[in-house]
Each structure stands twice: as structure tokens, then as C-alpha cells.
């Protein structure tokens, strides 16, 4: 459905744009129809950048993005933009604090002229509120009067009104309590099953991704280092970074990672014990190891 083809993203700053941060380097990824894909990685690995590109909030520096056969490099066609919707970490940031929720929820319908009458609009909002399990009384309230979990569910309700085919969820539960997190994740699960939208779930919480996603990818230093079915990835991580990442999530002692400034070559080379000359000069591409499992490491499978 949505496909990234060798997408690059460079942020330039400083005098005469000389400082460059390579946020994404040659990322290729295909999201399938109706699937939940979990994107994991440390902060700064580029996972949110990829999400923002998927939403059309950023234009990649190079590479191509395709949706159902239409491809573009710079600006996303409007038709696609409407079909991909996002929810973010801070739900309060998604709502204008000075608008009541009745207006906030109806706004996308008004703006994109998706409904003909007021009655139709109000009915659509009510249906959505039921779906996310929130009382209609909230319509007369402001976002600040509700709890974080409620506002996040309302943010989800609002994007569902657009009937998206892909939802990009960028750390939607990081700020929430454990019990509220369970509510939001459960809701995402049901909504996905009912509406059959695809979901790109960005998070560094391994248990959450494991519970939710079918496939997952791990990013490091702007590159996708491993992609595969979640269960396979957890049971048999091949990339050395994935191994460290998953071990740390299980409270096992892991070595501390150095920040490497690696322009060419594998981003993990400074931390890797088995890096050879080829790792320094050329970044390993994602190669299949079995079935749907891909890994970007020359040593994949033989790493300890």
C-alpha cells in the first residue's frame, strides 16, 4: 500500500546550511494493506521522521514514496494526505484548547466538506464517540477538562472521522499511565479490526509493539536495520543492535552504546564487535534471512 523507496532525509542548519544531520538514510519499507507495523528504535534513530514523512508533514530529501502505484518525491498528493492520518504523543497538543470538543471533532468534516447537513455531521460525531467509548457529555467540554487517556481517545475518534486507510501512531501511549495505556492499545486493536485500516505504530516500548503488531522494524542511526514478523524478531534477533535493544527491554545488562558519526558504512560500526572493513565503507543493505525476516548486517545470523 504505502511504500518508501530509498528515502533520505537530511536536516541542514547553521551558517550556509553546512551542518547536516542525516535523519534517514536509504530507508526502504513497504506497508501492507490492513497490517499493523511496529517501528522501534532509540530516540534520534529516525522513526518519528519516517512517520512524519508518511503523514506528508515532511518532504524527503531524496527517494520516492508510493501509494497504490502513484509515486512522488516532494509533495504528497492531497488524496493520499487525507487517507493517512496521525495521532501523537501529546494528545492535548492535537486540540485547540479554546475550542469545545463538539467543534474540534466536527472540524475535519466541515473543512473537507465531507457531510452535507448539520444533522449528518452530529450523527457522525456521535457514532465515533460511541466507538471510542466516550460519553457524549464531553462535547460541551474543553480538552483541558478531560484526562490524557480520554483526550487521546478523542484524537483517535477525530482522525477516524476521516476514514483513513493508514493511521500513523507516533508514541501514542508514552505519556499515559499503565492502565490507560491498556485502554488505548485495546481501542487501537478493536478499531483496526473493525475498520481494516493499516497502522504504523511508532514506539520504543517493546512489550506494547509485541502485543499489537504483526510485523516490526528496528531503526538505528537513520537506517532500518532489521524487519520481520514480531514473534520471529523477538525470538531470533539477527542484528547486533536489535539484540542489545531487546535485551535492554528485558532489564538485562547491556553495554552502553557510543554515539557514532558514521556518514558511510554501517551506523552501528562503533559499537559492533565483529565489524570488518566492509562495514566501515559500505552500509549493509537489508537482505532476507528467512521468509519475511530481513536484516542489514553482513554478519547476520553469525553474530553472538
Amino acid at each position, binding site marked *: 500500500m504505502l511504500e518508501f523507496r530509498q528515502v533520505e532525509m537530511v536536516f541542514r542548519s547553521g551558517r550556509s546550511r553546512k551542518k547536516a544531520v542525516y535523519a534517514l538514510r536509504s530507508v526502504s519499507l513497504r506497508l501492507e494493506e490492513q497490517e499493523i507495523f511496529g517501528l522501534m528504535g532509540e*530516540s534520534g534513530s529516525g522513526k518519528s521522521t519516517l512517520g512524519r514523512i508518511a503523514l506528508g508533514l515532511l518532504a524527503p530529501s531524496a527517494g520516492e514514496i508510493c501509494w497504490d502505484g502513484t509515486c512522488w518525491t516532494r509533495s504528497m498528493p492531497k488524496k493520499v494526505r487525507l487517507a493517512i492520518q496521525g495521532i501523537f504523543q501529546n494528545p492535548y497538543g492535537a486540540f485547540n484548547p479554546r475550542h469545545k470538543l463538539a467543534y474540534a471533532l466536527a472540524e475535519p468534516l466541515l473543512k473537507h466538506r465531507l457531510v452535507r447537513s448539520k444533522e449528518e455531521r452530529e450523527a457522525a460525531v456521535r457514532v465515533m464517540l460511541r466507538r471510542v467509548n466516550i460519553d457524549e457529555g464531553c462535547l460541551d467540554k474543553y480538552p483541558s477538562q478531560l484526562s490524557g*487517556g480520554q483526550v487521546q481517545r478523542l484524537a483517535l475518534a477525530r482522525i477516524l472521522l476521516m476514514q483513513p486507510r493508514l493511521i500513523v501512531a507516533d508514541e501514542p501511549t508514552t505519556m499515559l499511565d499503565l492502565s490507560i495505556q491498556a485502554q488505548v492499545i485495546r481501542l487501537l486493536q478493536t478499531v483496526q479490526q473493525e475498520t481494516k485500516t493499516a497502522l504504523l505504530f511508532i514506539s520504543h516500548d517493546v512489550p506494547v509493539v509485541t502485543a499489537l503488531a504483526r510485523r516490526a522494524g528496528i531503526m538505528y542511526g537513520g537506517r532500518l536495520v532489521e524487519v520481520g514478523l514480531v514473534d520471529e524478531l523477538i525470538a531470533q534477533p539477527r542484528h547486533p543492535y536489535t539484540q542489545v535493544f531487546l535485551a535492554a527491554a528485558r532489564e538485562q545488562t547491556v553495554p552502553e552504546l557510543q554515539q557514532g558519526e558514521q556518514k558511510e558504512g554501517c551506523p552501528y560500526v562503533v559499537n559492533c564487535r565483529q565489524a570488518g572493513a566492509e562495514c566501515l565503507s559500505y552500509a549493509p543493505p537489508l537482505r532476507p534471512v528467512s521468509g519475511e525476516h530481513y536484516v542489514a548486517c553482513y554478519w547476520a545470523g553469525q553474530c553472538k
Partner: protein
Amino acid sequence: MSALLQIERLSVTYNLNGRALPALQEVDLCLAPGEKLGLVGESGAGKTTLASAVMGLLPRGATVKGAILFKGQTLSSPLLARLRGREMVLIPQNVYNSLNPVFSIGQQMEDLLVKAQLPRQKRQQLILELLGKVRLPRPQELPGSYPHQLSGGMKQRILLAMGLSRSPSLVLADEPTKGLDPVRRMGILRLVKELVSRNGQSLILITHDLKAAVYLCDTVALMYRGELVEIIPASCLLTAGLHPYTRALLAAAPERGLAIPACGEGPPSPAAVQGCPYSLVCPICLPACRKKKPPLFSVGPGHMVRCGKVA
């Protein structure tokens, strides 16, 4: 051994535009020297209020009842002024607002040490030593840098270094791993564990990361709406938690099936609940629980539960 910190029937009530908002209700806690206590609960449970009460940092409108004893002495404001930053330190939650953006890291760290009356040369040396201790890369470059040049994880480590610079006997850490990715979270947890146990310091870790509390602490205290509901040895938490709220929290973890707990959402209701605060949503509540609040029952060594059903 006498307790380092003893909290006796501590109640804190905030005043919100004339409305009384109970944040803590009759909390009893005891912390031995060198003990590491995890304070776990959800937003609004009173974890941060408890830490602020210990540090004497509650807002002006708050009413405090009960007593806090530090090394046997009742904490009063002149005593607190002497202890704060020396004997006990708070490592705050929000790393972004906790460093002054217009002063360099070196200046801010030195400010703390000026009061220790060390010569300048010694101070610089100590700062580098501290930065090395929290395993920051290239410590010699850091004193000259400003907070905006550092990442969140680095700032967290600098706050840790600042907190430990005067070797306090009690460290309160408020959500030190919030929002960190697994590798960095583990790095901070290991670092705190190592530093604190090396010096035999006591730690109060405020978190809602149950697994972090198990990793780092000896004892875990669970709070619900301003009350302690269970105190349990950390090694037993994941398997032998007894209070229905503890169980609900454990079951809500993604690896345990994401059960939606009956906790109720939003801030605690200011209306005083008669009986057990959890009885409103408790699945195993007895009629007696609604009338009278059960006391903390001892159910094993170091294990106490406030639940009428368990008794």
C-alpha cells in the same frame, strides 16, 4: 538499626480555589539506611506529593498533618534548609526545565560546590570526576556547554551527577527513566543502582514503571489515590502482589494481556470516600470495605496489604 527516614501518619491536602483536595492520607513509611524503595502508582496517586513533602517543597497552600523524621529528628523548615541538597536530594522529573538555559553546565555544577567551601581547583577537578562517574562521554568538554546542546539522556545524567555531588544519604528520584528508549533506560537504571549501592545511600524511586522498580529497589510501595495500598519486597511484586489494584496494574502490562483495569480515570474525586478508596471499582470488594477503611495487614515478612478481603 534506626530508620533513616520515618513518615508517620502523613496527610497532605491541597487547597484548590477554596476546595480541599486530599492528596495524601495517613501514609506511614519507614526507610532504613541503604534501603531502596520504589514508590509506584498512577498519576494523581500522590507519589510526587510524598516526595515534595519529604523535601519540604510543597506549595504554600498545602496543609500537612503528621510527622516526617529524618535520622530521628522531626523535619522543620530550618532543618530542611540545612539538609536539602546535602543530606537529601531530589532528582526532578522534568530534565528540560531543571537546568538553567543561560548558564553553562560547569557554572551550574560549581554553584552547588561553592557552598562546600572547596578551593576552585578542587571544584573543577571534582566536577570532571562526577561527570566521568555518570559515564558521560568526553567529560572535559561538558562544563563549557549549555543545556540546549545536550540530549535529554545527557541532561538526566548531569542532574544525577549534581544530585550526588554532595554524597547525600537520601536520594529521591522522580521518574528518572520516563520516555527513554530501552537501552538508555537500562543505562540510567544501572547507573543509579551502581552509584547508590556503592555509597550505601538510600533511594526513593518514584515511577510507574513496575519493572524498573523491581530491578532497582528492595521494597516497592504501591499507592492509590493518596493511600498506600501495598508494601511488598520487590522480588515478590510480579508474582505475589495481593491487593486487587496491584493485580490490576500487573495485568494491564502488554505482556500480560493488556487487561483494562477498573481504576477509574481522571483525577481523584475530592469528595472523601468512606471506607477503602478502591472499593468504588474493586472487583472483589466486600460490603464492609465500603464502610470502614481496612488497615495495612501484615501478610508476610516485609509484605503489607490494605485490603479487607485479604485479611
